[in-house]
Every structure is written in structure tokens, then in C-alpha cells.
């Protein structure tokens, strides 16, 4: 039998708020070739079997962060997860865990966007500089210190993996903490004191129970668990130090 005739069953979790009271599974049979991603399988369904299936996607190359789904229960980027790895068994595709489902495989990520906006994810210059003065000097070592934390594509697989976020959606969570850490340790930045207010707060890093699953599912090796844990130390130090110096005092 030629490869083109291989077929795989894809079980998709469907939910339409206008007609469904709760999510339900639907199985599609999809012809596939060994190079096809789970995303391409889902696209086939939409193009040829059921135009009403809704999901997000764009770049197809694991950089835009749109196409996160649970694939056989594991938070995955569907564009770089391949059908061949499941064949001949059925593969199950569901919306990312821990987020409200808007429809089918589309989840509401507004909560995350709010967290991202709250952490002041931009340079608060330590020593302001004019354009005429040119670039800040930053050695490769200084770049290396924060580079991995700047690689987060906001795909939210880490939130779908995080048991604490599942229990408490107000928990700031892995990606936002990694991003906060990214700016705090950037040699150009002087905004750490402002950002630590959030980390020290009720919804900050102490909710993390160090499961580490967030780093395991991260497709970009950001290692958010590492950022969270470094910030536990920072937050603890900050908690005690704040009795010793005025708020916002020089480091």
C-alpha cells in the first residue's frame, strides 16, 4: 500500500458555546503522510471534512506560538508534533488545559495577556541613553544571562502543564515570571524593584510547588521553572531587605 493511502483517526474535542452544553469528542479519519504534523491533520479536517472546526494557527514553524493544543494529554505545539508518532493508534487533540474554552480548540488567553501587561515587560533604563549616544554595551556573557528567558513565544504550554495554575488562575505562572526575570537580569534594566512588588504579592512565585513540568513541555527551552525558582530566592531576599532600606532605594 502506498504511503499516501495511510489513514489515521484524529479524535477532536469539540465545543460550541452557542449549541453545546459541554464539550464532546468527535472522531475524523484523515489520510496522512509521514511528514504531516498534527496541525496539518486538523487543517485537513477543516478543509475537507468539517469547515466548522475552529483552532488558531499561523507560522507552521514553532515560533508564532498560536497552535498549542493537548495532544494525547500533553501540552504541545501542533505544528511540530507529527502524526507518524501516533500511527496506527488514534490521536486525541483537545484545547489547552486550565484555560476556558472559547470554542473547539480555541482557549481564552486574556488572563495571560493581563499578566504579561502587569509585569512591566519593557526596559526601565538603569542609565537612560540618547540615540546619539548609540547602543548600550552588553557583552555576550551579559546577553547569555537572560537570552533563554527572552525566547518565550507565549504559547502557554507551560500554563497548561502547571498544576498550580490549574488550581488558581490568578497565579502569575511560568511564562510571565520568565519574562519578568528576563527584564530584571538584563544589564540595561533598572526596573527590578518595581517588578518585585508583583512577585512578592499574593499571586507571585510562592504558589509554585516546583513540579517542573512547565520546563519539560516548553518548546523553546526557556526553562520557566528556573526563572520561578530564582525569583523565589529574590523574593525572599527582597522580603527581608525591604525592612532595611526605603522602598525604591538604590541597589
Amino acid at each position, binding site marked *: 500500500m502506498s504511503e499516501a493511502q495511510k489513514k489515521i483517526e484524529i479524535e477532536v474535542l469539540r465545543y460550541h458555546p452557542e449549541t453545546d452544553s459541554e464539550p464532546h469528542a468527535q472522531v475524523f479519519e484523515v489520510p496522512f503522510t509521514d511528514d504531516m504534523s498534527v496541525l496539518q491533520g486538523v487543517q485537513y479536517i477543516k478543509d475537507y471534512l468539517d469547515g466548522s472546526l475552529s483552532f488558531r494557527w499561523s507560522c*507552521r514553524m514553532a*515560533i508564532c506560538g498560536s497552535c498549542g493544543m493537548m495532544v494525547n494529554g500533553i501540552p504541545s505545539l501542533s505544528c*511540530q508534533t507529527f502524526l507518524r508518532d501516533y500511527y496506527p493508534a488514534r490521536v486525541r487533540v483537545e484545547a489547552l488545559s486550565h484555560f476556558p474554552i472559547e470554542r473547539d480548540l480555541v482557549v481564552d488567553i486574556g488572563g495571560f495577556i493581563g499578566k504579561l501587561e502587569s509585569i512591566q515587560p*519593557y526596559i526601565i533604563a538603569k542609565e537612560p541613553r540618547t540615540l546619539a549616544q548609540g547602543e548600550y*554595551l*552588553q*557583552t555576550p556573557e551579559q546577553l547569555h544571562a537572560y537570552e533563554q528567558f527572552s525566547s518565550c*513565544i507565549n504559547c502557554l504550554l507551560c500554563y497548561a502543564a502547571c498544576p498550580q495554575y490549574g488550581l488558581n488562575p490568578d497565579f502569575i505562572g511560568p511564562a510571565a515570571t520568565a519574562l519578568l526575570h528576563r527584564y530584571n537580569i538584563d544589564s540595561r534594566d533598572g526596573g527590578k524593584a518595581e517588578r518585585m512588588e508583583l512577585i512578592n504579592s499574593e499571586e507571585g512565585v510562592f504558589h509554585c510547588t516546583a513540579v517542573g513540568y512547565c520546563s519539560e513541555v516548553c518548546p523553546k527551552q526557556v526553562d520557566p521553572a528556573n526563572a520561578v525558582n530564582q525569583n523565589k530566592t529574590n523574593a525572599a531576599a527582597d522580603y527581608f531587605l525591604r525592612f532595611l532600606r526605603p522602598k525604591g532605594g538604590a541597589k
Partner: protein
Amino acid sequence: MESYKADVVIVGGGGAGLRAAIAVAESDPALKIALVSKVYPMRSHTVSAEGGSAGVKLSTDSLEYHFNDTVGGGDWLCEQDVVDYFVAHCTEELTQLEHWGCPWSRTPDGHVNVRAFGGMKIERTWFAADKTGFHMLHTLFQTSIKYPSIKRFDEHFCVDLVVEDGRVQGVVAIEIASGEFSLIEARSVIIATGGAGRVFRENTNGGVVTGDGMALAYRHGVPLRDMEFVQYHPTCMPGTGLLFTEACRGEGGFLVNKDGYRYLQDYGLGPAEPTPRNKAMELGPRDRLSQAFWYEQQKGRTIEGRFGSVVHLDLRHLGEQKLRERLPQIYELAEQFLGVDPAHEPIPVRPAVHYTMGGILVDGLCAAPLPGLYAAGECSSVGIHGANRLGSNSLSELLVFGKVAGVEAARFAKSVAPGNSATLLKQAQAVEQRVLGLKTKTGGTERIATLRKEMAQTMEDGCGIYRLADTMQKTCDKLDELKDRFRNVNVEDRSSVWNTEWLLAIELDYQLDVARSMAYSALNRRESRGAHQRLDGFEQRDDVNFLAHSQAHYVADGPPRIDYGPVKITKSPPGTRAYGAAGEKVEQERKASNV
């Protein structure tokens, strides 16, 4: 219908849209900005740009060199005064991005590093490993959060511009999560919606790159300029079209045919040397490299793969350590998508559609002929790319002209009074009825995916790397047929929440208009220049008849009307476009004649 009053509305939240939004906010914090994007801004296709962004940096480099590379690379179809402005502002914009936190790769002493890129005489491409677009986009998005006057309309799909009293006064958008329409009133509008590469079958583009903004402006009478110039990137993944950055060659990678031979030396790009020489061999411009591939294929010197002919991108001699440091994303793409370890095996590649050189006609201040309308980035034709864009000029374009568009749109907004809300709302309601009609009408039989696939195939057949009149004509005819069949499209999904099938239908309608502007402009250009190459008696550049910008004008019930506008030549008269040793000879002759 919800109504929101802004001063400036920006459609598109990628690099150009975000840079424009920040520029408006900085030029006057009192102006209310609405940033409308069909995806969350960090999903925009800027995210996929890999290799880098051009700006003169080294003491051995000069603005004149960058100008000459750009104008020659564009086969003299560039607006030279605009290129002048562009090259003079790239470096300060890239420095601005550095101040905003972009993690540019560095030299050991902490300065921003630059790498070689195709068609560039001196190393001037700033890079953040091989994820430059990703880092620029996230830096801009995160920085935009600082400005309270920027109100984002994330996941809002723009369906029309509202034009009243001869000027644009707002947009109509659908909130994707609810299917509800909104009118966003504004005194000026910036379109920054990116390119249209997905009208072709094999392309490097994300699913969102459907030419929406081009079609919106076009339908309101704004010409689309130079649409026949579509860039094929020479090194893409067979099948998916995913991109292997030009930086692979900037770092020293080779392109070889089935005999392991660096075939580019046979196409006026040699001599072949063991290390990359700028503007030669693998560091030639993209149009020439894609054309060389085509000839190798004709000669039977390519390798036959499952997704068509390929050549090999050989990075093995660079070693794993350098590849992991400079090209980490390329390494992962090759491993995960192809099962190829580039430190030990060559990567199979073939050309795929990558970039739309043409776009919405704007002047050097990003203003379209429709008062109040501005455009920036890939959707626009501000005039810097000519007939062939040089790699790493487009990311700089987003910054330089995103800012210009923002400043100019802010200035215009302050110069005019707000419109009549009641009249604008009435228009918006008519738009709503028309767009809703697409999913409420009955009896449609055409499947969206079928029409889309036929469009993409015919664009590849007729408007590929080399073009012939009869196949271009067939493509034009086919697109006319598809436009007709689109009237009979069937949207199965009638619901409101996240109805992406409905949105795909609207996008397809945009794509068909943009595709026709490309195909008809191509058919009409009876010469060969840059990325537009013919094999039917028009193999040469014809400066007498075609040193001119094509302009496609929308015609409601028929094919576009094509006319031509002048090209601004200030200091570089059209010359011989040559690379490699031949290019150096031409440059020496030019220098000698100037003495």
C-alpha cells in the same frame, strides 16, 4: 453595533503596526490610538523573520554603499529619494530597538554584531541569532504596553475602511470571539497588514499573510504598485516551504547541486571561493539565486525529492558549535521537520514564495492617494525594494517607515475634524449587512479550500520564477473564473463565536483581488527585471518602455486596469546589474568614469 472613537486607527499589529503605534503615542500622548489586529500582535508574521535587519554599522561601510546595494538590487525600480531617507534612518531605528531591549547578538566587547547578507557589499545586518523577527516583534509588542494611549483590539478582523467626504474616517472590524461588528472611527488610518505570499502554493508565509490591507485599500481606489514583483527565496523546505534563512549563507553555507558542485559559479556569480565573499556566489541576491536553481533543474542537475527538485544547502563545514550559536532555529527546523542534522548532512532546499515587493501605493511619507490613509511595511509600496528586495531590508523598513507612518498619521489626524458619527455608523451598518451575507446566503456549492488551492496552484503555474505570456494569460483567466465562482462559495458554519470558516472566506476574497493585481501586472510588463523574468521574447530589461512602476487599479466587475507611473532617479542612473567578479569589474568601471 458598538462604536469606538479613536484619533488614529492602525490595522495590523506586526512590526510596522506596532512601531507606528509607538510613534503616534510618542508624537502626541493625547491622541487615542486603536491598534486592530486579527491575531494577538506577537503572533504576527514578523515573528518568522530570521536572518536580520540592515543598518550601516561598521566604519568601512557607508550610507552610499547601502543605497547602491539597494537600488542595484532592486534593478533600478526604486524611488531613490525614499531609499536615501531609508538608509539614513535604519541605524538609529535599530539602535532605538536596542534601547528598548532587543537582544541583538554582540561582539566580544559588547557592541552589536553584524553579519553578511545577500547582495550587501559590507556586513551590515544586525541579528538576534536567527530569530531576529521574533525578537524585534516581541520587543516592540512589550514596549508598546508602556503607552496607555494605545488601545488594542486583539483578534479583531478588519472588513472594510469607512470613507466619507473623500477621506478615510475609520474601519469596520469583527470581534472574532463574538462575531460582533464594531465601527472604529478615526481621523487617520494606517494599514500595516503585511504581505500576500499565501496566494501562492509553496510559500514561507504564515497563514495570516493574506493581503487583507492591500485589498481593502485597493477596493477603495488606491492603486497597488509593482505587484508583479514577488520574491522567491532560494532556500526553503520542500513541501512546507518553511524558510532556511539567508544567514545560513551569510555564515558561510554553500549551495550545491546533485554532483556536489557549487553551481552558482555558472550563473555570473563566481568565482567560487572557500569563504563567502560579499555580493558573490551564495551571497548574491535572491532573484538571481532562485533563477539559477530553475536553470539547474532544467539541466537535470538537481536532486529529485518527494516534493519536487531540490539542491543542497551545505552547512557541515561550519561545525555544530557555530550552527547552534548562530543558527539555532535552523538547526531545530532541520532536525524536527526533516530529520536532518545539518552539522552532518546537507539540507535539501528549493525556492518558495517569500515576499511581496509591491503593495499599496504611498509616497515617501507613507501617505496613500486617499487622504487620511497611510501604509507601512510589506503591504505598502513606499519604493525601496524595486524589482527585487535585498534580504534584511524589510525588517528595517518596518521600523523606519512604521515610524514615519505614525508621525504623519498623527499630524494628519490633528489637522482634520472628527467625522459625522451618524453617517459613519450608517456606512458601517451597510458593511455589516454585506459581510454577514457571506454566511447567511443559501445554496452555495463552492468549497473554500478548493477555490484557495486552485488559486495558489495557478499563481505558481503562471507567476513563478520564469514567466511566459500564455501561462500568465491562463492564470489571469483562471483567477477571473475563481472570482466568479467565489460568488457561489459555501460557508457551512453560520454561527457567531470564532467562526473561522467565515473569516477564511473573507480572506479568500481579499486574496483573489490581490492575486489578480499580481497576474495582470505581470502579463503587462513586457520585459525582464529583478524578480519578474520572462522567456518569451522579453528576456531583457527595457528601460525605454518599462523603467516605470506598474499600478493596478481595482475595477468592480472585471480585471484590474494597469497603468504606469514614473520612477524617481536622483543619483544612480540605471546601470548593469552584476555580481561576483563581473560586479566588481562594473563597479571599477563606474568609479573610473566618475573620476
